[in-house]
């Protein structure tokens, strides 16, 4: 494969929350890596070769070996670089962390796609679902500092990139995340105090601008 035999490369897209999970995990571990920005409308031969099945970012290339799917990449990073563990050591706690990270993907990500792509009744339903899903996450957070408890962990990494999309959800869905889930907003602010997070996430207004442009490009308006 035409890439460095050693070292770490991340094929990514600036606003992708899935890519940001990987950036946060690498930063938490203090791993140096080469960031390669992909054009999603003109994917590089490297990306297509590294992820022939899904042809999607992010892809982590470690010593020439590609790893795909953001949550799998984060777990791989956690297992290879064992400082600052992201997953709990107890199997039951680990199962709970995997369950909630999977929930973010199965429910919140799916909902968000509906929220900005549809209108009318379908959008109203997406809004209701989104609020319900956010409240479930808030319930799981409870009074903990982080989803990981006292320490920033796997579920925090999985979910925090979507906090940069809260403004977009609110504007598209016509609701307030702060009103519905104040604890989540407080948690997001707490996460942003970490350099790994603040340096990886983009300004919510930039994210919203991007979605507006994307909507125009896809003729969804």
């Amino acid at each position, binding site marked *: 494969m035409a890439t460095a035999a050693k070292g770490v490369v991340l094929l990514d897209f600036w606003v992708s929350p899935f890519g940001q999970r990987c950036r946060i995990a690498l930063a938490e571990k203090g791993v140096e890596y080469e960031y390669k920005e992909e054009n999603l409308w003109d994917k590089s031969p490297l990306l297509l070769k590294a992820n022939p099945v899904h042809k999607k970012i992010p892809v982590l290339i470690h010593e020439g070996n590609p*790893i795909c*799917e953001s949550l799998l990449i984060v777990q*791989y990073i956690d297992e*290879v670089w064992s400082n600052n563990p992201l997953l709990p050591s107890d199997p*039951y706690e680990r*199962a709970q962390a995997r*369950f909630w990270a*999977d929930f973010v993907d199965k429910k919140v990500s799916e909902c968000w796609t509906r929220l900005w792509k549809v209108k009318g009744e379908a959008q109203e339903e997406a809004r209701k679902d989104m609020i319900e899903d956010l409240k479930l996450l808030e319930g799981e957070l409870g009074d903990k500092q982080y989803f990981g408890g006292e320490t920033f962990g796997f579920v925090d990494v999985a979910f925090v990139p979507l906090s940069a999309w809260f403004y977009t959800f609110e504007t598209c869905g016509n609701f307030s995340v702060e009103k519905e889930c104040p604890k989540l907003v407080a948690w997001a602010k707490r996460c942003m105090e970490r350099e790994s997070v603040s340096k990886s996430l983009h300004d919510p207004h930039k994210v919203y601008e991007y979605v507006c442009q994307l909507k125009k490009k896809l003729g969804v308006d």
Partner: protein
Amino acid sequence: MADKVILLSSWVSAFGLRVQIALAEKEVDYEFREENLFDKSPLLLELNPVHKKIPVLIHNGKPVCESSVIIQYIDEVWTNGPSLLPQDPLQRANARFWADFVDKMIYQCGSRVWKNKGDAQAAAKKELIGILKQLEGELGEKPFFGGETLGYVDIVLVPFSSWFYTYETFGGFSIEKECPKLLAWVRRCNERESVSKVLPDRHKVYERTCGLKKRLGLE
């Protein structure tokens, strides 16, 4: 304290069957409780309030949900015998990738084959064959996806083989013709008791699917 393990599942859930195979591979004694998916038990709704789905593993009173999460939990708690997941992080990531691929692709595509008709069914059939060929490619010349022994990807995929006859009959095609290596792999998996004792008969699955179609008004 002896472990108390209960599995809330259904004989006809490919996701539940995976967990049964994993428990059998680890020789874990457990109580199987059949759920009526049209009339879910209060226990199921209490233990999986988020998704309200089976399977749910209850280990000493604590619930674990989502089949792939459950299997990894089983592998980490019962460390007797061979690991279901590889030890090496890269191989482990690869195993998780293909298990995730099975999860994302087979159930929804296979369902479209038996739920739809005409063009929609033809498209689903083509897609399903593509998916199975990709899996066959990943298997390659190995006896199992896990290499020499049954592993995580094998356990995640093999229950769907009980649905192959259903897909073939509704879709009008032969999986053996399209993916002979995959069928050989299915037969190899069935040489293991953990698999053969758990997988339902393909005709029973087909009958049940026919009944489900009627119930859903999809005839």
